[in-house]
């Protein structure tokens, strides 16, 4: 008998608002510890939280992008638990009245398209960071723990999927798609390795069509790859347990990237009692129709819409996905070049290929304007520069040497298509290689390639190869 995995994903996204969720402190990563703090985010006695309207607006954006219903009226709750990096020993979060509920996200996975339900998306505040000194950097072996509250109070959106995901690759595809949505909305830098986007997974096994099994929460997956691997491992572990007639224990497990295993953290014998209650320091969040509609009207084109448009424009599916997941600057470059008349398919290939590769080598490079890229592609199409010379032209453009034609001319990369000029070179090459000429005439056809190569070399690669072939054929014929 087979087992069917059931996976739900919980995502935390730190919003890149200019100030924190409930105070005016800057949201900024990598600053010296405890420099972006004030009485409120330190939880000093007497301090009070005041909600950041922009953060709520961004949460509504996320909710709309995930096809959620936006509650007109929602409430901040206090989630009570004691932890050293939680300044008030409660976290302001949302409980039974979150801002966004009941949405979905369509994902194209490795095995086709699928839809993942979104249970809810709500607003909360991040905690500070504990830095454990001593062996291993983990709390159990720490000799001393330092606290940095720069992150405390950073707006955090929690998105909870329905347990709709059947396989680890699908979980990964969902996570990637969600990240693309977040990046497109411009509300977070969504860096997994820095923790500004964090994924936890709930996973259980059941018989197809049977009741849900006991779920295990898996944490500490800092990349899409580790998300997929951790789920694969965990499903395997649970399957072995069940097949051996043993039970899965409800617990939270920690993914150990190096060992490639999940490890139990603490057993959840009973679910923690967070004693949620409405935060009396805050009034309900009201998102009225006018506000919601204004936010909806300002939504950018979402990744799925974008990919569909690329396909309509004639871009192949693979390139469309890569382009859609590219940085906004690159996507804008594509749009502008196409608008300037360039062929979408070719443009997409150049943007996701050469240009992306060049940027990866050197982030300082200046992207060409759309019109400039269109010009380059026209030069290629017209045979004015060869495909290989075009890469050099591009390099010049990215280095700020000017427009496509300007660079091609300055770098002497214009293809020689003038038969008079080429004839002279061809004649010289023939004169200098009597052996080759003789062998060709004796029927050794492949020598022609050698002669073409000599002409190309003599022109520094600028000769139009088709023309060279024709001229040689005429002379030798």
């Amino acid at each position, binding site marked *: 008998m087979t087992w069917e995995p059931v996976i739900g994903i919980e995502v935390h996204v730190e919003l890149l608002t200019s100030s924190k969720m409930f105070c005016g402190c800057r949201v900024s990563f990598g600053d010296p510890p405890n420099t972006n703090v004030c*009485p409120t985010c*330190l*939880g*000093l*006695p*007497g*301090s*009070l*939280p*005041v*909600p950041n309207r922009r953060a709520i607006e961004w949460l509504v954006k996320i909710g709309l992008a995930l096809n959620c219903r936006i509650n007109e009226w929602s409430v901040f709750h*206090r989630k*009570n638990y*004691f932890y*050293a990096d939680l*300044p*008030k*020993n*409660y976290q302001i979060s949302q409980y039974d009245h979150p801002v966004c509920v009941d949405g979905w996200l369509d994902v194209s996975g490795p095995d086709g398209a699928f839809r993942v339900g979104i249970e809810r998306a709500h607003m909360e505040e991040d905690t500070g960071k504990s830095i454990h000194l001593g062996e291993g950097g983990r709390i159990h072996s720490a000799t001393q*723990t330092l*606290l940095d509250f720069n992150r405390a109070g950073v707006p955090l959106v929690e998105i909870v999927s329905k347990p709709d995901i059947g396989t680890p690759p699908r979980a990964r595809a969902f996570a990637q798609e969600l990240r693309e949505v977040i990046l497109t909305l411009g509300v977070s830098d969504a860096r997994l390795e820095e923790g500004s986007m964090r994924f936890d997974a709930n996973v259980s096994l059941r018989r197809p069509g049977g009741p849900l099994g006991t779920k295990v929460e898996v944490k500490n997956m800092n990349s899409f790859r580790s998300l997929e691997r951790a789920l694969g491992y965990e499903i395997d572990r649970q399957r072995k347990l069940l097949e051996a007639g043993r039970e899965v224990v409800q617990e939270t497990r920690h993914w150990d990237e190096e060992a490639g295993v999940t490890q139990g953290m603490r057993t959840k014998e009973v679910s923690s*009692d967070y*004693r*949620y*209650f409405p935060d*009396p*320091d*805050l*009034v309900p969040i009201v998102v009225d129709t006018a506000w919601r509609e204004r936010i909806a009207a300002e939504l950018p084109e979402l990744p799925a819409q974008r990919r569909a448009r690329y396909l309509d424009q004639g871009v192949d599916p693979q390139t469309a996905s890569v382009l859609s997941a590219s940085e906004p600057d690159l996507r804008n470059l594509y749009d502008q070049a196409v608008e300037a008349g360039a062929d979408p398919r070719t443009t997409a290939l150049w943007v996701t290929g050469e240009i992306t590769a060049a940027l990866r080598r050197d982030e300082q490079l200046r992207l060409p304007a759309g019109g400039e890229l269109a010009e380059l592609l026209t030069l290629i199409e017209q045979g004015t520069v060869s495909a290989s010379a075009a890469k050099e032209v591009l390099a010049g453009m990215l280095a700020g040497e000017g427009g496509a034609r300007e660079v091609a001319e300055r770098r002497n990369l214009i293809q020689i298509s003038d038969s008079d000029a080429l004839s002279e070179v061809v004649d010289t090459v023939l004169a200098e290689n009597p052996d080759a000429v003789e062998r060709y005439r004796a029927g050794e056809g492949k020598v022609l390639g050698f002669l073409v190569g000599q002409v190309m070399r003599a022109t520094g690669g600028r000769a139009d190869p088709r023309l060279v072939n024709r001229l040689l054929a005429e002379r030798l014929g």
Partner: protein
Amino acid sequence: MSTPTIAEANRLFEEGLLDPVELLSEVLHRASLTEAELHAYLTIDHEGARRRAEAAAERLARGERRGPLDGIPIALKDNLCTKGVETTCASQILAGWVPPYDATAVARLQEAGAVLVGKTNLDEFAMGSSTENSAYGPTRNPWDTERVPGGSSGGSAAAVAVGSAVAALGSDTGGSIRQPAALCGVVGFKPTYGLVSRYGLVAFASSLDQIGPITRTVADAGMLFEVIAGHDPLDATSYPGQVPRWDAELDAGVGGVRIGLVRELSGDGIDPEVAEVCRRVLDLLSDQGAQVVEVSLPTVEVALSAYYLVAPAECSANLARFDGIRYGLRVPGDTVSETMGRTRAEGFGPEVTRRILLGTYALSAGYYDAFYLQAQRVRALVVQDFAEAYQKADVLVSPTSPTTAFPLGAKVADPLAMYMSDVCTIPSNLAGHPAISLPVGLDSAGLPIGLQIMAPALGETLLFRVAAEVERVAGFDARPRLAEGMP
């Protein structure tokens, strides 16, 4: 001379008969005479007060006074954050803690030129009705030092009563301004919830806490209220609209005003002498043309139970931050959680511990609906009760406290009896309505009796109008023993 009221001090300043430095000296002199017996203050900021008094004196000399509070020595309950001045909430857990910022109400007093004298004693974290729950020892009642001054703002009320402050700020969660004002023979006013910013008030129960003045006269309370009230962007529950004018109808009298005596707060459980004095005042108001009616607030008794669930529930979370990690007392343990546990066990007194446990229990899974949620339903009923009562009356009155000041230690061992002290004052907190207590007479033991006047939300204009008339007709001019016969 005796310590003047704010209004008197203003007249003396203007006539050149007094300046802020002299007034501060007078107030500090009174403190030096009374503190050993009274213990109204936890901290007196001699240096800061002198500096501010001198600045106020210069402004007075230049004719640049900022308003009626400029140069007036004011005491602050020690749960209001004061930048650079220790703020303890009368708890061991905050011993030595010096806030890096001022509460909004404190900052507004400073801007108005007030001279902040020091920090007054309270029940630890404002939890109590007698100021006996202070980790630094009780404050005593200036009318009879064997008795309590009420609480939790007992230090502020006692200081104003003896003149070791001209006026004071307190905080009122279930009566903590009004009840000690009543027991000390002074005026205590709790404004409509949201009119005074709570920013910088160390929270007890956030949905009930409200800062307000304790003064000798109704007009003094109004002047203080005017300065500290108003929208504050740092408090999300702060009322964004216009603050009602306290003095808009001050001299209008009570002709035609419907005054409702709350039936449930005037019979059983109320000391007969207290009830009698209150009724006499109503007769006097009636003589002035008021229409006195009897109204019913059927839920007042369950209101007390609801309060003792809502307030502890909120306090259980509000006080969670005192864990020894970032500030205040730390009692080290082997692990972080042991450190937190030990710090809290040693740092909090018994009443605070009791309420945290009560509140934690009320919020726990399986009990939330039966306790916290049920209490919120009762709270909604109280609001409804008031709404119905205000169909029949424009303001409501009752005794402020069921009894006059009780002896020290009398109710310490019986929390329920102590909780009953707040039965008259709690409904206004649950509803968020304004209420004022003012002295209207003495009982046979010579202890002051307070009358409470309640009004609907934002009804301050009418409340002060009625209070001014009560003050006039009651003609209360007795002074406590500790303030008498002083040089």
